[in-house]
């Protein structure tokens, strides 16, 4: 267990992070009154965020080992354990999740009017499971929390969603479930192909499996993660889910759930099946480029603001997968940073759409044209987040996309050149939206009497805006924590490819 730095304090901080929202969720049932329930959920999420912050300060960026580790036996007969730990790849994702959740509660304050208790229950439950995904180091436990995220999300869309919520929720559920069941088969196959049999994720890395076995495992994993990301041909569940979900659901979906897919590539595909990853790299890169262009063009044609941002997500996630699979430090760190950036920026954009929807009850661009006249503070926020989304210099996404493209050019000039139009498309669709919403004319009668942002809404958006500029102007503190883990990961992938396989190849039984 030398990969795991056991937590030396007397409090198991990662477990606490998972249990806090879970316990908070169940305690909701004894709390009377909708208002009090909202405050309770807000309090629990803020407390979780506060508990997670010390992780950053006690994190040791010089090692690639998993820190704050916890290890307990769970099912001894099958050597299944409860192992938690985070490294430079998961640290920022954990922090992003905990920091976003209070904002999700805040943005639902007025938006959710029915079954408040159940809504907050789902929010807290999904927070707990998402944190579990980023912290799990045992495959069985990982699979459990990975699938468990589906259930609260299914309800968030299906109960509090828009007109076509049933279609969207069931499509979301079945599509993603279908993607991940084969992963379970691959996990069990890995277990039996490793000696001694283990479900421990770090122990499965660098085992030098036979190349045909790696390919099968890779495909099973790829399907699960590509659907989650979603990569280009597997993206059709995303717009439906985003459009129908309530604001908080969209934010969680875009900011965290999609990252679980890219996190899966980094944590599992690359280090466990390095040879297969390298083999499939060209195809994945081209799929990413296709996603970037497809997402961009489709976003350009949308008249629904939420759909526009949903398709822009497909494009942005394409950049992230591109960055991961160029397999060099620039690309990978850029992708990792961009995962955080996309979480902040797209989350904020969905919050903005939710704010306008609460007032005008429509997400149509044409019907929301010209609200800038009445809501100057709102459109200021919207403008900054849009600029961030199109990777304007000075904002967070610029750093991320720049690093990804730098990595891309180092890998292949052709592929990087093909991805460049994606950045231009982003500018086109974002500016088109801004132009309509801010300066779209004043003749829209429904807008008279629109109130600008209230304090709660400003409090919701301000932290995200702060992060946009913080990462955009001083990205060092965010990138520094990744170096050791990314370097180790690349060594696992590339070293595995060119060096000598450390173990005799283990063939399929």
């Amino acid at each position: 267990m030398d990969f795991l730095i056991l937590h030396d304090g007397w409090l198991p901080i990662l477990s606490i992070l998972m249990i806090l929202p879970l316990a908070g969720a169940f305690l909701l049932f004894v709390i009377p009154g909708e208002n009090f329930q909202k405050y309770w959920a807000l309090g629990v999420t803020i407390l979780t965020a506060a508990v997670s912050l010390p992780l950053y300060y006690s994190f040791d960026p010089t090692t690639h080992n998993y820190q704050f580790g916890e290890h307990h036996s769970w099912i001894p007969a099958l050597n299944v354990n409860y192992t938690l730990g985070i490294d430079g790849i998961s640290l920022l994702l954990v922090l992003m999740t905990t920091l976003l959740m209070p904002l999700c509660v805040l943005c639902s304050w007025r938006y959710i009017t029915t079954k408040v208790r159940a809504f907050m229950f789902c929010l807290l439950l999904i927070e707990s499971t998402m944190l579990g995904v980023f912290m799990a180091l045992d495959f069985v436990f990982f699979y459990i929390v990975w699938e468990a995220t589906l259930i609260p999300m299914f309800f968030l869309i299906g109960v509090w969603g828009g007109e076509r919520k049933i279609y969207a929720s069931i499509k979301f559920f079945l599509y993603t479930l279908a993607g991940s069941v084969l992963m379970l088969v691959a996990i069990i196959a890995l277990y039996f192909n490793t000696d001694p049999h283990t479900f421990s994720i770090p122990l499965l890395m660098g085992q030098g499996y036979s190349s045909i076995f790696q390919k099968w495992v890779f495909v099973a994993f790829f399907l699960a993660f590509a659907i989650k990301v979603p990569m280009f041909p597997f993206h059709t569940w995303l717009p439906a889910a985003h459009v129908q979900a309530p604001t908080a659901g969209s934010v969680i979906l875009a900011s965290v759930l999609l990252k679980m897919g890219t996190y899966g590539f980094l944590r599992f595909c690359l280090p466990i099946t390095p040879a297969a990853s390298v083999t499939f790299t060209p195809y994945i890169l081209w799929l990413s480029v296709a996603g970037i262009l497809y997402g961009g063009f489709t976003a350009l044609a949308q008249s629904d603001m939420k759909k526009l941002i949903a398709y822009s997500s497909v494009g942005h996630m394409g950049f992230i997968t591109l960055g991961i699979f160029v397999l060099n430090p620039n690309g990978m760190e850029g992708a990792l940073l961009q995962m955080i950036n996309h979480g902040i920026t797209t989350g904020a954009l969905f919050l903005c759409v939710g704010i306008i929807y609460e007032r005008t009850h429509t997400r149509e661009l044409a019907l929301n044209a010209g609200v800038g006249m009445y809501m100057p503070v709102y459109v200021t926020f919207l403008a900054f987040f849009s600029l961030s989304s199109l990777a304007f210099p000075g904002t967070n996404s610029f750093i991320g996309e720049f690093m990804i493209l730098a990595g891309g050019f180092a890998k292949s000039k052709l592929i990087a050149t093909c991805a460049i139009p994606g950045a231009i498309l982003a500018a086109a669709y974002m500016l088109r939206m801004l132009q309509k919403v801010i300066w779209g004319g004043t003749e829209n009668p429904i807008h008279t009497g629109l109130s600008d942002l209230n304090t709660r809404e400003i409090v919701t958006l301000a932290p995200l805006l702060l992060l946009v500029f913080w990462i955009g102007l001083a990205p060092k503190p965010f990138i520094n924590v990744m170096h050791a883990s990314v370097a180790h990961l690349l060594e696992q992938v590339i070293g595995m490819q060119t060096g000598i396989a450390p173990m005799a190849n283990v063939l399929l039984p």
Partner: protein
Amino acid sequence: MNTFSPFTLSSLSFLGPELVLLSVGILLIVVDLFFENRLLLPWLTAAGTLVSLVLLFNSPSGIVFGYMYVVDAYSVFFKMVCLVGVLFTVLLSERYLTTEKLRHGEYYSLLVFSTVGMMAMVSGGDLIVVYLGLELMALSVYCLVGLLKQDSRSNEASLKYFLMGAFSTGLLLYGISLIYGLTGTTDLSMLSQRVVSLDLINNHAFLVGLGLVLVAFCFKVAAAPFHMWAPDVYEGAPSSITAFMAVAPKAAAFAVLGRVLIMGFADVHIHWGPIIAFLAVLTMAIGNIAAIAQKSLKRMLAYSSIAHAGYALLGILAGNNEGLSATMNYLFIYAFMNMGAFAILILLCDNKRRGEQLDDYRGLAKTNPLVAALMLVFLFSLVGLPPTAGFIGKFYLLVAAIHAGYIVTVVAAMIFSVISAYYYLRVVRYMYFENAVQETAAVSISPGMTAALVLAMIGMIGMATFPGPILSFAGKSLIGF
């Protein structure tokens, strides 16, 4: 059989649980005759079951009556599953029988007698004992299925089950006689030696005999293509008996399958392995796909129970202790989740509605949030979705089947479990995403029902959070098997 041990009174001490149940069954008939109070019967049965359950874990183990009756940890495990199934059924019946105006006292004694039959099946070390137990169980269940005399569906179900059951019993006897003719014994432990010593592994007549035995038990567990009776019988029977049939007799039949195939005919695994693999896939396919088309929840659960037999076969198919313990574990978990789902179905059955149609579940989350939440847990568990106990059960099965090399079968199982998610989710959708058509009345709860639901929930949560002990219990019971 050189060391024939004659019948002695001391052998009876091995039969403690069975004898208790038998006396309870007879006592029930007497009580039914002389006492007016109907509520006495279920609680007497429940108490008898509990005593039997306690005795089960305190009885000596050994082989008695000249290798006829085996009391080992394996049989104890399955007896536990059967007794848990009966306990649930009794708790569910307490209120249900009043609603259905089913006032027969025989109901409980038949239930108890069929349980004694199952226990004999599970402990049978000889094909003849297995057969006798099977018949005792089946005859009681035929009657139970037809107890709703006024309901033509119930009559049809009973007759259909009886005719098909009699036919499959005929096949079983024919198979046993073929095997006896070739080996000269019906003793299971002797059989496995004779198969090797007489070199019968590729003997055609022997394989036909084995095939016939296999068919008879596949009929009992309702594995496709021998499942045809199941949907109609499950739908027509009183709901409490449907729940019972899906759990206890099925577990007993699996126990025999495990004992016969893995203890008796382990050397013939190359022959029956692929057959079981094919049957498992076919069962999952038919069960899950047909369930999609159902409008009645009861019938849907009937098809789902067919599909679950397919999953449970995955462990048998592995042909080793690992697989068998996975199947045992799965059947135990299945008892809780299936009983839970049926408990909700029965809970919703009152004078105004039957609780059997999917439409009865529209808007349930609004009218009865707690009932809907419980149903939700059972349904997700039936899908096998993490983090429920159903996932743990399925996970072990997959591990065992993959270890045995049946990757394609496992992939098929996974695909069908995604398909199954669709129809289970439809119930969830009706409960949570849709509004009630008409104002539904609040449900009335009874002590038995409360006990059943609490028990099911404890089982669900316990096995989801601490899945280790049951698996190791199942695994340990197979040592020296």
